[in-house]
């Protein structure tokens, strides 16, 4: 057979440790080179663009604080996705789960403006978690009961959630004093998260995120449950044979994954905007960027804390070049898509080696 194209991929017997660590970094560097080439092709000086991105995200204390601000929702959502992806459940709908979490918390904050902080704040996080979890288990139920493909259902639920938020902020929840903007009224002081000094870093959410990362990491590595998730993902029939319930595992995974995305949504409305706004105003696609956070972290929840900082920086830097170079909002997707492709490829180079096949073989 003449190989087309003449490349053959074969599995390494063992993966060297250094390679596991270095592969994502090399992939990232290569992705940045590829993005540079795309920029050049579209008539944008890539070196200037990268300088602007780096300065925007890490070059000033304000820039860095904004990087942390954007890493909070990415971290929470990304941690949840590491779980889902470990179970091979392709939850592409975290964006919708985030929006529903934000919506539920907003409903509570608007309904009880007189409640004190110690009461309203925890309840907002709890109801946000529940909302995100409920939105997240719909595709899990459909998959476990009728084998309906979760990629499509979870994604369709993003569009539905986004339209729901639009309906609320343009309709019944529209704040009368918001000068016609599609915003709800501002939350009471009690329903606003405290921030770190002059920054927009709503530190309670940040702390929640880091604690959850450690807890999930321990759950995954130290308990039987973490093992069950992996087996369910890699071999559902073996899992069933071993007495594990597919439905139960999936539901639990999606309650946590959806719930964490919901928490991220609560952080955005209670820590940044103090109100519900149109969906793009709440999240510039955090739920989608979190997919890369999880993947770049090689599905390690603690790793996701670090990679969320990196992608948060990219979002801030992306905003900076949008302004200075007059680029459209979609530019960030070029980064997301290319990085994801290269990380995927890098994973492969760590696990496999590639050799060029000569025509005489095979």
């Amino acid at each position, binding site marked *: 057979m003449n190989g*087309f194209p003449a490349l053959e*991929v074969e599995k390494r017997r063992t993966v060297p440790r250094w390679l596991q660590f270095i592969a994502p970094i090399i992939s990232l560097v290569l992705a940045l080179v590829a993005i540079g080439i795309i920029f050049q092709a579209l008539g944008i000086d890539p070196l200037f663009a990268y300088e602007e991105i780096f300065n925007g995200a890490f070059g000033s204390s304000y820039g860095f604080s904004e990087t942390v601000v954007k890493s909070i929702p990415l971290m929470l959502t990304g941690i949840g996705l590491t779980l889902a992806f470990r179970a091979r459940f392709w939850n592409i709908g975290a964006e919708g789960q985030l929006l529903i979490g934000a919506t539920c918390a907003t409903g509570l904050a608007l309904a009880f403006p007189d409640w004190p902080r110690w009461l309203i704040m925890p309840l907002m996080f709890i109801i946000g978690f529940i909302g995100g979890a409920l939105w997240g288990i719909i595709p899990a139920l459909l998959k476990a009961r009728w084998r309906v493909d979760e990629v499509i*259902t979870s*994604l*369709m639920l993003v569009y539905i959630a986004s339209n729901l938020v639009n309906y609320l902020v343009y309709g019944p929840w529209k704040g009368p004093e918001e000068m016609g903007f599609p915003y709800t009224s501002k939350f009471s002081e009690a329903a606003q998260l405290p921030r770190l000094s002059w920054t927009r870093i709503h530190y309670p959410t940040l702390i929640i995120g880091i604690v959850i990362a450690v807890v999930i990491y321990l759950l995954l590595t130290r308990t039987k449950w973490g093992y069950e998730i992996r087996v369910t993902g890699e071999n559902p029939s073996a899992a069933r044979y071993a007495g594990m319930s597919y439905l139960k595992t999936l539901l639990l995974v999606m309650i946590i994954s959806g719930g964490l995305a919901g928490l991220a949504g609560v952080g955005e409305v209670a820590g940044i905007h103090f109100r519900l706004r149109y969906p793009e105003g709440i999240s510039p696609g955090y739920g989608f960027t979190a997919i890369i956070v999880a993947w770049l972290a090689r599905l390690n929840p603690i790793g996701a804390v670090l990679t969320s900082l990196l992608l948060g920086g990219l979002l801030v830097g992306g905003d900076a070049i949008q302004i200075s170079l007059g680029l*459209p909002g*979609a*530019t960030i997707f070029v980064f997301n*898509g290319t990085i994801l*492709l290269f990380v995927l490829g890098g994973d492969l180079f760590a696990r496999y080696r590639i050799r060029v096949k000569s025509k005489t073989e095979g």
Partner: protein
Amino acid sequence: MQFILSALRAAIPAGTPLLFGTLGEVYTERSGVLNLGIEGMMIMGSVTAFGVAHTTGNVWLAILLAALAGGLLALLHAFASITLKVNQVVSGLAITMLGLGVSGMMGKRYIGQPLDAGFTAVDIPLLSDIPIFGPLLFQFDPLVYLAILLVPLLWFVLYRTRWGLSLRSVGESPATADALGVNVVAVRYGAVFFGGLLAGVGGAYLSVVYAPAWIEGMTAGAGWIVIALTIFAMWDPLRALLGAYLFGGVRVLQYRLQPLGISPNLLAMLPFIFTILVLVASAGEAMRRRIGAPAALMQPYTREER
């Protein structure tokens, strides 16, 4: 009667981009490759077609280059999923993001620009002269007819020719196909590329014919509905026609119901709710009739040592 006819008249063009996309994805998945990058390929088609039509005024050239743009992006997915054997879900997702991003950057200068070029409706001789029905059902732009013609053609190729047999065998059992001398890799590359070409045409239809303008992210989920329609169609080109026009009808309904005072935001949920319902129904039907996805879908092929 008039209402039903005019709704039908509107549903066909609304479903045409979905039909192109679905026909392509049916072929792609029949070869055993899942392409979730359709949304990205469609939108690259949209921006390419609008750009070419806007600068040259030649709509056929616009459609051709849009197809190539979709096909090129599809080759990237083919390389990742067939040669490198990476996870097809993630690869497709990455390619959708890439397409959305690059199209946004390419299209910035076309925002708010009018398009002078376009297709003129083609009257089907005799049939278009039938009173009431004629003008309603037999006066479409040429791409509508092209999509309709592709349906029986692709069905025939899939089920009645050697090519189709190779394609189906590669998707069901690549090892057997390989043993029978079918070049698995070549067939899969071809099927993915073909799917990308049609996705590009579907995207082009949106920006040049259906709503002649460039709007960032204008495919608005159409590529994902295509993936769902492929399942609804049970990987059969004939059923793809039914599904695409059905969804075209839902889209039309969304606008026809607006004057009744229902919030446009709630109506905008319709196609997506409908997609989920259709998937659940298809899953039930597939279980009853024991029809499933191509057996080797999402499975990379590695030839065993002999």
